[in-house]
């Protein structure tokens, strides 16, 4: 697809280990989300969930380039990003189940996970709200002379908010180490992109600030991995921000575990076309065909992940709820934290 980057350094072809890692991350995200689909009808995960099934390649391909000290900012649709960055699925699920051992002690839920040790300094569910935060993290690193970079994930819808524009301008102005990742899944809730933007190429906005920008197939994890390699290297080299528009599609409704085409939210054919282009299946066959893994290997991988997720669900469900008194505590940070 199109690119405006003249100076993108070529990245080496990914090793077999990297490729296996990408598949594992995608499977991990897919199975995590499917686990939620499975448990949600029990009605004990009492919070809105925005699933990323269909979009796994973006999280996997980009975050493979991040280091532990790097920052990551996400949105309401954050599960994949958190998992790929290394957040424990049990801690996430405990949070979604409203338990005290959740990452926010039950105060945040699925929309607001955080994990400072993974560089996730809170998550906003205000559309566009997190983008400036991610730039702020990069500013902090820049001011301290650290070489951390900041990956900022957001949707096509978020690119309509003023905060998007203000953040890109500032990041470009100061040459901050930010990798902007727009997951263009063609919808914001039930609104198609065409009802919200005059042209579907979100990345063209970034070019107006002189930010190198690429539009790419967000369902092709190798393409994402390659582009993100260029982006991360660019940012880490102190060359300033880089912008990736990853074209993808979500399978489930905007919120919750159901498909929404029955409700008339979008054409069934469109969904089914995109399901044909499943990023996980596609890559699985790719690496099986290439002999990097065999069917038994992937089945074993799936089984291991499933077992881990089952254990995580069981653990999370067994955890204690927070004390009711906590509802009104922790509003102000104490002098020493």
């Amino acid at each position, binding site marked *: 697809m199109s690119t405006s980057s003249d100076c993108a350094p070529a990245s080496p072809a990914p090793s077999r280990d990297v490729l296996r890692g990408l598949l594992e991350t995608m499977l991990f995200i897919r199975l995590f989300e499917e686990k939620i689909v499975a448990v949600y009808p029990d009605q004990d995960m*009492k919070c809105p969930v925005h699933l990323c099934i269909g979009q796994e390649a973006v999280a996997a391909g980009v975050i493979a380039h991040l280091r532990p000290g790097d920052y990551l900012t996400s949105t309401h649709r954050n599960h994949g990003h958190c998992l790929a960055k290394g957040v424990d699925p049990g801690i996430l699920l405990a949070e979604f189940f409203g338990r005290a051992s959740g990452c926010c002690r*039950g*105060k*945040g839920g699925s929309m607001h996970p955080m994990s400072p040790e993974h560089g996730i300094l809170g998550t906003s569910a205000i559309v566009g709200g997190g983008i400036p935060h991610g730039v702020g993290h990069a500013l902090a690193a820049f001011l301290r002379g650290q070489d951390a970079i900041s990956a900022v994930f957001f949707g096509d819808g978020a690119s309509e908010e003023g905060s998007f524009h203000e953040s890109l301008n500032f990041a470009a102005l100061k040459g901050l180490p930010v990798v902007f990742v727009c997951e263009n899944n063609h919808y914001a809730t039930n609104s198609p992109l065409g009802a919200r933007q005059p042209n579907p190429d979100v990345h063209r906005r970034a070019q107006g600030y002189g930010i190198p920008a690429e539009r790419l197939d967000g369902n092709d994890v190798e393409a994402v991995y390659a582009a993100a390699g260029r982006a991360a290297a660019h940012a880490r080299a102190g060359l300033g921000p880089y912008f990736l528009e990853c074209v993808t599609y979500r399978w489930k409704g905007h919120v919750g575990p159901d498909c929404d085409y029955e409700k008339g939210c979008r054409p069934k054919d469109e969904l089914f076309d995109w399901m044909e282009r499943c990023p996980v299946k596609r890559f699985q066959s790719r690496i099986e065909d290439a002999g990097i893994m065999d069917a038994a290997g992937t089945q074993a991988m799936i089984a291991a992940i499933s077992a881990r997720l089952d254990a995580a669900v069981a653990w999370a469900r067994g955890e204690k*709820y927070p004390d*009711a008194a906590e509802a009104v505590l922790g509003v102000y940070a104490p002098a020493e934290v």
Partner: protein
Amino acid sequence: MPWTKVFLAKEDLACFGPGEGLRGLTFVQALLEAQTQILENDPSAFVIGEGVNDSGGVFGSTLGLADRFGPKRVMDMPIAENGLTGIAAGAAAAGMRPIFVHMRMDFLPMCMDQIVNHAAKWHYMSGGALTVPLVIRSIIGRGWGSAAQHSQGLHSLFLSVPGLKIIAPSTPYDAKGLLMEAAADNNPVLVVEHRWLYGSVGYVPEAPYREPFGKALVRRPGRDCTVVAISQMVYEAMRAAADLEAQGVSVEVVDPRSLKPLDTETILASVRRTGRLVVADVACPMGGAASEIMAAVLETDPGLLAAPAVRVSFPEAPTPCSPVLEEAYYPGARHIAGAVKKTLGLSDHG
């Protein structure tokens, strides 16, 4: 007056019976009917908001409008609340009458500049020649882990803004009548709708009608204590009043219906009768309608009160996600009853 009656249960509606020419509607049906009639009767009106034309129809409140009136009258929009508020305000200054819909009140802080610095001030700044007839509907969410950014009652942010009007209907009758009045008003009007009111029922005339702003209603007369209850708190107060009646305490429930202008006269008259005051709001405690109502008493005659007033509100905290914490967070009938007893020096047990 069937219109002013608050029904705590759907079943109660039947007691009037359809034979009497009264028609029952839910709150959300009333909102939808109001907007339908506004669009029918005023070619300059249009509805704009994220998802107003989709299959959910903003929790049903705009359902079918797009099919009926087309995309120029019922407009989806980019996710750009401040810019679009400015665009709507500009269209209003140029003679249109937009109804801007927010799925959550939490998104209003995005467009404070256009509301506070522009729409609300435009008439005054222009020396009176320009008007910005802009209706802003906004819905307070609650429950199922909506958490800190999807459940706020933020009307307190707007009370101090001259040039703005704020209404908080609690019954289907008011949902229609106050919204139609808002659409006819030549000023920006903020509509506070609580999501939990959407299913509540009441009698609603089919023909268009407008309820004037600035008129509080006594929803239930009583002798011992005045409870001023806002939005969804009206229902909690009615429940508390019913409970307390069984215990021999007579509660008067007053519903301000509009917060700006605020009908302090009706409230003060009630307090004068009962000598006691509880104020219940769906918002955090400080600097809101509850404190404003109390200030009105203190400025008029502190001697009206035989006991300290009590505020029932969200706590001084953001909304938590966990069901256990949510449950602890929200005040309800029980807290109102407790507050009433406190004003009467009664123990809260029994």
